[in-house]
């Protein structure tokens, strides 16, 4: 395993809301929430909305009733916009260090091995550049392990959003790797154990019963005991908190609200077929993760880019594709990924990375009803469970989709999007307007 640390985690603040604000400055300073397309629940909140007490997953009709006079703006998710802004964010963020893992639509780990000088200063410069180039505010956390970088990011965000929660100089950019031991100790003691990456509510509850309440408490646990009592996964998290790298780049421990599958290539790729193959494989893997958590996806982001640390022409392109209807079917996902790659591929480019991200996730069984004009539903579900069982038994990719399939049926199913803003950056007929 290769650990090109120290690591930085760059994370956009309230990403979906920030994307909307770039093109609608009037939303600045006001409570804004973004609603999921399938059920109208909050999937992103501005700081003002968080301060009101609006929670993730809060249904809009309840929010409207509970805060009738708060002047809340609710918007339907505009995934075409978020996908494009994400690809810009990732492209600029890549300048921070030689290795990058796109972790989710709004978070990226950067491997900083070999970067000389003051990492915090460099991070501030990259953060300003992201803000200037894209309009998106971000925070950067730096640490000797990915888990500590994630923790540092939480501190950078909290110090900015809630002054007084942490030392003010840690706002926006927080480098835990250079803090004096006493300061690091105090910060860990002031942070709840549930904030640690990889410690979910269930384990946090068990830890609290044993009086392990803060990050400092967790970091002082004995890794061997943790492995015996819980799992290797938690042991790894504890070791990472102690500063020992156990999680490399592109080795993702758990699924989140979005599922991302990305990889850097061993050597540059410049032809279409291997690129289509790569994203087909990512889409198949993403499909497995999706089915494992019992979900469906309505939108897929496909991206590919060059490395800013390689000579040659730089190129970065992404596309957000809507599935005909929410699906967890590998055949649908692979076909969509292949269609996306064909749209963004450009000859003459030395691609170093590609990826697939599933957005707009909904639990199984929440899909929009559609007349059963083609009875693929049940049969394909059975096909998928057989596929997963075989791949589970004989290894990943034992059975896979041979042809990615280019025929795309016309989209018959439309999302409810009355509150959606224009697709400012992906449609010529929806450009933002500037008055002269």
């Amino acid at each position, binding site marked *: 395993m290769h650990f090109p640390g120290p690591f930085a985690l760059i994370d956009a603040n309230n990403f979906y809301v920030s994307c909307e604000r770039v093109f609608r400055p009037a939303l600045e300073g006001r409570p804004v929430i973004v609603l999921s397309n399938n059920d109208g629940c909050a999937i992103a909140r501005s700081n003002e909305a968080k301060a009101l007490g609006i929670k993730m997953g809060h249904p809009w009709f309840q929010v409207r009733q509970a805060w009738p006079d708060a002047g809340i703006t609710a918007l339907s998710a505009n995934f075409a916009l978020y996908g494009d802004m994400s690809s810009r964010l990732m492209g600029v963020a890549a300048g921070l260090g030689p290795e990058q893992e796109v972790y989710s639509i709004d978070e990226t780990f950067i491997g900083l091995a070999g970067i000389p000088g003051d990492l915090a200063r460099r991070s501030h410069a990259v953060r300003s550049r992201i803000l200037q*180039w894209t309009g998106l505010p971000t925070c950067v956390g730096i640490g000797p392990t990915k888990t500590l970088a994630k923790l540092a990011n939480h501190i950078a965000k909290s110090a900015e959003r809630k002054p007084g929660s942490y030392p003010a100089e840690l706002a926006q950019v927080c480098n835990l790797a250079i803090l004096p031991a006493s300061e690091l100790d105090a910060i860990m003691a002031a942070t709840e154990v549930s904030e640690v990456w990889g410690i979910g509510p269930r384990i946090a509850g068990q830890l609290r019963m044993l009086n392990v309440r803060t990050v400092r408490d967790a970091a002082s646990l004995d890794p061997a005991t943790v492995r015996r009592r819980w799992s290797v996964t938690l042991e790894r998290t504890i070791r990472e908190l102690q500063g020992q790298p156990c999680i490399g780049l592109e080795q993702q421990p758990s699924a989140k609200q979005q599922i991302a599958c990305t990889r850097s290539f061993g050597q540059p790729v410049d032809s279409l077929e291997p690129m289509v193959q790569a994203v087909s494989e990512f889409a198949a893997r993403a499909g497995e993760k999706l089915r494992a958590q019992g979900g469906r996806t309505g939108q897929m982001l496909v991206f590919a880019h060059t490395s800013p640390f390689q000579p040659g022409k730089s190129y970065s392109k992404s596309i957000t594709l809507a599935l005909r209807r929410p699906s967890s079917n590998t055949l649908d996902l692979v076909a969509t990924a292949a269609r996306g790659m064909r749209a963004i591929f450009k000859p003459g480019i030395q691609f170093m990375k590609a990826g697939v991200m599933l957005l707009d996730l909904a639990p199984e069984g929440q899909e929009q009803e559609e007349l059963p004009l083609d009875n693929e539903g049940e049969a394909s579900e059975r096909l998928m469970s057989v596929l997963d069982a075989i791949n589970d038994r004989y290894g990943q990719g034992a059975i896979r989709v041979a042809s990615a399939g280019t025929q795309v049926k016309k989209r018959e199913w439309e999302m409810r999007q009355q509150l959606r803003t224009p697709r400012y950056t992906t449609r*010529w007929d929806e*450009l*933002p307007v500037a*008055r*002269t």
Partner: protein
Amino acid sequence: MSLCLPFLSWRPPAGFPSPADDYDHARLDLNELLIAHPLATFFFEVSGRSMEGAGIFDRDLVIVDRAIKPAHGCIVLAQVDNDFTVKYLRLRRGQPELASANPTFPTLRPAEGQQLLVCGVVTAAIKRFTRTRHF
């Protein structure tokens, strides 16, 4: 971060041909001519007549590069009172003001407490005489 490529690279006739030269024979791409920083470039549609003197007319499209530092005399995209506007940027004693390219329109000097934010530099305008598509 920006990369400027010539239309054709010239090399002496002797020597081993470089595979990179293949690229030089790709069909001309307007993106290369017009966009230096793709990650920082956005398109806007213009509404209004105050920049006609600069060749920017109602319904033209403008290309905005947020990576270029705005300087005195640039045409910029700015944010005033939560609206986007395209104007000449003038710096008077370090204070920004937004000038029109049409004498019948006033220069915009931010009032006390009024926010003027320069977002990016307008690098080109696109004017079409026929519309081949529905947009």
